């Protein structure tokens, strides 16, 4: 498997970033949706600290991913993909990039506006990126939550499209993002029922 993306498949850097961020996002969604109901105390503080630490991690990984994407490009759509689907897929991908970068930033602003510390896994502190401001805190709290639900919708569409390609189009769209790579296109015994 190449490091860099080729015309046919994703390289190992893009794959690793993709799946690590999937796992972190799922963990974040679960933590984020449950932590608000916890009783005030050190346990709640620890969970919030974990949420913030993972959020900062996602932000850094997304910036790396964006840089890598701009440098290494992306594979072509699998042959036979209609142009409108290709356009929607590209739009979805960039929306995911934007949302996954905007989410942690909105959280960081929210945290700064509340005047809370921001410590990365207990190792070092990051500065506030906004002044302490009650209204800004309220505003970003809403934005953070709305961005999350938009992200859920877009990510679901993205995953549904991948499954659609895999199960119904029976092409390599999904498998070429999997660790073992695209086994479908070159597979001689695989019959494709969607040949244009």
């Amino acid at each position, binding site marked *: 498997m190449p490091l860099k993306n080729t015309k046919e498949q994703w390289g190992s850097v893009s794959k690793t970033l993709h799946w690590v961020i999937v796992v972190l996002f799922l963990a974040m969604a679960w933590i984020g949706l449950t932590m608000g109901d916890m009783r*005030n*105390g*050190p*346990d709640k*503080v620890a969970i919030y*600290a974990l949420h913030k630490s993972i959020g900062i991690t996602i932000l850094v990984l997304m910036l790396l991913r964006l840089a890598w994407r701009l440098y290494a490009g992306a594979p072509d759509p699998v042959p036979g993909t209609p142009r409108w689907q290709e356009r929607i897929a590209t739009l979805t991908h960039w929306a995911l990039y934007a949302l996954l970068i905007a989410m942690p930033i909105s959280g960081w602003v929210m945290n700064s506006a*509340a*005047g*809370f*510390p921001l*410590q990365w896994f*207990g190792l*070092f*502190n990051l500065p506030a990126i906004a002044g*302490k401001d009650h209204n800004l805190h309220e505003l970003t709290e809403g934005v953070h939550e709305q961005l999350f639900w938009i992200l859920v919708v877009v990510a679901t569409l993205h995953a549904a499209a991948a499954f659609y390609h895999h199960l119904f189009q029976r092409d390599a769209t999904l498998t070429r993002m999997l660790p073992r790579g695209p086994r479908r296109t070159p597979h001689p015994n695989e019959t494709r029922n969607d040949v244009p």
Partner: protein
Amino acid sequence: MFRKTIILALALLPTSAFAADYAQTGGSTLAFAGKYQGEVFTGKFPGFTTRLSFDPKQLAGSKLEVSIPLATASTGNADYDGELRGDAFFGSPKFPQAKYVATKFRALGGNRYAADGSLSLRGVNKPVTLEFTWTPGAKPVLAGKATVKRLDFGVGGGDWADTTLIPDAIAISTKVVFAPMK
């Protein structure tokens, strides 16, 4: 006979002849600072009151008394203040005031002094040393610092005892502007 008269005369002199009495006036502050998640927070005790009998030449007769209301202690962060004033930290409904009393003073050279006093907080009484500078004048100023170990007094002693989250040492700093009492 003459000597006895002198002793009698000295004994009858009011103590203020040895240590001047002062009351706190405007411009005084009592602040605290600690760390939370690796970040410094600061707070104030508005409404604290100080009384002082002090004479740099007669440290033996000196006395410092500070009353600190806890229900108004403020860090400027409403989320912190709710916890701070509540049961887990100051327990201000049950222990509305902290009190610091010092009668032992040491000269540290120049205008520097130390008061070996006792802090009563949350029903616990423990020694706390206040180091300060004394600037005499029409409105003399005491500027001092002390370190209080919060866990000695059970401040955040239960759930919040983890010192990697909130270290034990809390820095106290104060500047008290005095006016002579008449």
